[in-house]
């Protein structure tokens, strides 16, 4: 018996398409982002970190000592895995299907996030490009600041629905909309 698996995003049932135009406050959900977990072997943290930084089209998310997430919307998981595994002292695993990427943006994005996470996100305290693991709506995830007023959240797939609904609820005062990215 052969089974044909159909790729279906876990938030498919949460994003129903009633909202046609994105508001200034918006959550974008890329359908197929590449997300790798990379660990550095003992003693090679600095070298692996520097090598990962040099990868094209990939942004690096700090998780903890010797641990990163590599995120890309342009490089395929197989391609990126090959590149990362060439780095001396690095171990990598493809988590693209196990993690969900949420991009939240808007002038009052910090007021929305302040209701579901307890970390100081003031522009001076959390610079563009910074990232860290933290509790997001009671779920352990990774948050990164990608622009002046834009953040990216990565949570485990099975928790994505809960986190997504929580963010939508917290963003109601700013008419937060959500949708999949077209690409």
């Amino acid at each position, binding site marked *: 018996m052969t089974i044909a698996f159909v790729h279906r995003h876990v938030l498919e049932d949460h994003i129903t398409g009633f909202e046609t135009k994105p508001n200034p406050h918006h959550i974008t959900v890329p359908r197929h982002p590449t997300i790798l977990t990379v660990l550095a072997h*003992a*003693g090679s943290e600095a070298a692996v970190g520097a090598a990962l930084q040099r990868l094209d089209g990939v942004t690096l998310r700090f*998780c*903890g*000592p010797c*641990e990163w997430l590599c995120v890309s919307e342009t490089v395929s998981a197989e391609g990126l895995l090959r590149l990362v595994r060439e780095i001396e002292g690095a171990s990598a695993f493809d988590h693209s299907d196990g993690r969900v990427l949420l991009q939240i943006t808007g002038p009052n994005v910090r007021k929305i996030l302040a209701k579901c996470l*307890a*970390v*100081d996100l003031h522009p001076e305290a959390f610079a563009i490009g910074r990232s*860290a*693991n*933290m*509790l997001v709506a009671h779920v*352990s995830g990774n948050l990164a600041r990608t622009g002046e007023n834009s953040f990216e959240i990565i949570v485990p797939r099975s928790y994505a629905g809960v986190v997504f609904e929580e963010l939508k609820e917290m963003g109601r005062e700013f008419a937060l909309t959500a949708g999949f990215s077209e690409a």
Partner: protein
Amino acid sequence: MASLITCPHCGVRPKEEFSIRGDAVPVRPAPNASDETWYAYVYVRDNPKGLIREYWHHTGGCRRFLVVERDNVTHEVFSVTDAADLARSASGEVA
């Protein structure tokens, strides 16, 4: 404020991100140590008032074990160190 712990890797975080894993003072005895030594290591605790050292696991963040030195009366936190770094410096090993 004991409710804010400054993780050496993640910065200032609320205590909800951590799980407290107990006294960091007892040192694990050798496998062939006497039953009395093992009994003391597993069960006997001082429960002091004032300065204490505990293992805090940063479950909601970097997932590292930390050693938090704090006062259980005033809730003042004196130091937060990565437990692995602490063990390495104690054994003279360079990370």
